């Protein structure tokens, strides 16, 4: 729970910078304090540290530009150790002791414990990287920036099945498999609904314990059911295990992939390398759509050297663009509200179409994007191992949504070496 008061230093940098060009001489007011709990240790640290670095870059950027409403921004953060039980205490401390003005949350199971605290005090919740949190709370001051859209669980499989049903002939059977854990279970639940909706026969529908290390038996079980397509809901370790097992056993259905966490991370992608060829998974951003979102590149240029120093995801295609966008939403909502009144900020957040580095964001009544925009990609032309090849836009072909499509699905799944 290491507290980091980042804003003072960056605020000073902003003062020096702006004074140098003669536009401002000093901050006229106290900083706007933005508090958040973020996993810097434990199982979710890999994502938390990327988000933290991005928020630091954002605060430096915004302070260099004159802050928000003429006030510098100060980040106040504590490490929740990836443990939801620490979260209520942290947000209470942020609000009661540190007296933060705004709060940000991160991750599904780390956002839920913060919700009662925020709701009790009427705080607006700016959230990144969480799925369907507000389905239960129905809190009108909740805003989530990941582009899952209004369909919750279905968004982690909808695009995959759209792509699958574009095959000719259409697939008739599907295998569903996932870990016994929160995200993968939601993904497979959504996929089951999608399969039924599209009249696919489910020939395999099982979960495996999160501690599984040998995925050979799982893949053999799926192969024996002979499905046309395979949908996998997995976490990084099992993503790696499933892909490796499929390659080792030569299992190549028409379509293989799904909501596979880890295929967005440079290190895992680089490690799997050519084994990922023809696998279909989701992304939030990738070089193939760089021309659609030109403002992401300057962020990544700042992020990448610092990420290398810190030993975190060196490419940063997954977390940083949307974490930065979360803070842009916050900044624009506060600016539109003209102050820190939470009711006005919430109203502004509902009314505004936000211009962010990941495109325009408009929130629906539930605080999620008003439309889904997950990118479904197919890995192509990978050779050996190494993460550098993923910088090439052709390494990931965008299949869905149609407006971002950069190529067509290649099927059936080919061999690894192509």
């Amino acid at each position, binding site marked *: *729970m*290491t507290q980091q008061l980042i804003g003072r230093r960056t605020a000073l940098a902003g003062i020096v910078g702006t004074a140098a060009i003669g536009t401002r001489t000093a901050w006229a007011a106290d900083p706007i304090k933005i508090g958040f709990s973020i996993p810097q240790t434990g*199982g979710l640290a890999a994502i938390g540290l990327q988000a933290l670095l991005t928020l630091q870059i954002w605060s430096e950027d915004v302070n260099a530009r004159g802050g928000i409403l003429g006030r510098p921004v100060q980040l106040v953060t504590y490490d929740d150790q990836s443990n*939801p039980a620490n979260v209520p205490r942290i947000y209470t401390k942020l609000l009661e002791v540190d007296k933060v003005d705004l709060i940000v949350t991160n991750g599904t199971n780390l956002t*839920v414990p913060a919700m*009662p605290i925020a709701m009790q005090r009427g705080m607006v919740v700016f959230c990144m990287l969480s799925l369907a949190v507000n389905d239960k709370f129905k809190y009108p001051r909740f805003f989530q920036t990941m582009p899952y859209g209004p369909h919750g669980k279905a968004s982690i499989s909808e695009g995959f099945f759209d792509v699958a049903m574009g095959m000719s002939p259409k697939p008739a059977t599907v295998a569903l498999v996932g870990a016994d*854990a929160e995200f993968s*279970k939601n993904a497979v639940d959504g996929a089951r609904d999608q399969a039924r909706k599209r009249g696919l026969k489910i020939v395999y529908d099982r979960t495996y314990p999160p501690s599984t290390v040998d995925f050979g038996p799982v893949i053999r079980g799926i192969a024996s059911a002979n499905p046309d397509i395979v949908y996998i809901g997995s976490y990084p370790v099992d993503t790696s295990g499933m892909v490796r097992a499929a390659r080792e056993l030569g299992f190549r259905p028409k379509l293989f992939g799904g909501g596979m966490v880890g295929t967005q991370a440079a290190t895992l992608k680089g490690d799997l390398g050519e084994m990922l060829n023809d696998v279909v998974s989701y992304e939030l951003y990738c070089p193939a759509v760089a021309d659609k979102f030109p403002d992401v590149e300057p962020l990544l240029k700042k992020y990448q050297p610092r990420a290398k120093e810190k030993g975190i995801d060196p490419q940063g295609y997954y977390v940083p663009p949307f974490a930065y966008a979360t803070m842009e939403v916050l900044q624009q909502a506060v600016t539109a509200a003209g102050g820190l009144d939470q009711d006005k900020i919430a109203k502004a957040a509902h009314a505004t179409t936000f211009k962010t580095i990941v495109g325009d964001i408009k929130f629906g009544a539930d605080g999620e994007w008003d439309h889904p925009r997950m990118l479904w990609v197919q890995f192509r032309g990978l050779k050996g191992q190494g993460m550098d090849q993923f910088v090439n836009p052709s390494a990931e072909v965008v299949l869905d949504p149609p407006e971002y499509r950069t190529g067509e699905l290649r099927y059936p799944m080919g061999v690894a070496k192509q």
Partner: protein
Amino acid sequence: MTNLRFGLLGLALIVALWLAGRLVTNEYVFFAGYAVAQYILLATAWNLLGGYAGYVNFGTAAFFALGAYVSVAVNKLFEPPLIVLILVGALASGAVGLAMGYLTLKLRGVFFSIATLALAIVAQAVVTNWEFVGGSSGAYLLRPTAGPWGGSYVEYLFYVMLVMAVGAVVLARCIERSKIGFGLAAIRDDELVGEAYGVPTLRLKLLVTVLSGALMGMAGAPLPFYVAYLDPPSAFNLAYAVNTIAMPLIGGASTWVGPVIGAVLLTAVQETAMVTISSAANLMIVGLLMVLFISLAPNGIMGLLRGVRSRA
């Protein structure tokens, strides 16, 4: 001091803290206080079996999480008051304690400890597949904003946990100074000799296994209301087991006051370390303190104090 007077002292402490709480406007104090009281309860519960009888239980998280999950299940079915949930949690964890006692108390030393560790793993696997309480996706539980007697619900949770922690300490002291306590001490020192002298070892061990399990279940029952979300990895978090063992060992495992000192000290050290050094150092500090105390002061702080007093 008689047990009655000690109990009254505990009651006075609760009243004093309640009166002091009237002056507190910062809710963070109740959140932090809840964590301290929870660990006092858990450490005291662990000490009944581990400290008094010498049976080291690595399965704290299993009993604790069971209390929490039973609380989620019963609340989903009937939405009874929190007190009922705590009693049901205690009953469930006590029953599992009894079952575990029958199955494992023939095991001694490290074999018993491994069996308790296995219990935690089995319990986590069961809960992960128990869809009614959310399974692997976890369970949401929307806590009320206000407590039943005014104030916030978190304030209410703190007082409930405080009452349970004080009650557990009073119970532990009563046991320590009773025939049961002497019997448990005999088991800890040499079980065979104790049995030869007529100590009903199995009955005593079963009694403390049930009591210890029930108290841990009671500690877990309010957790879903405190966190608002419960998933297997956090309910069965290793930190519960590690801290619950470390606290009595550091404070002094064979006394009622040891777990209290250990819980207050360790929670304070951890909180300070997390804020000033790094949260990654948090469990390492606990580990280092445990190693230091086991090597240099096996009877904990209370043992050190006794040594100083006897030399004086």
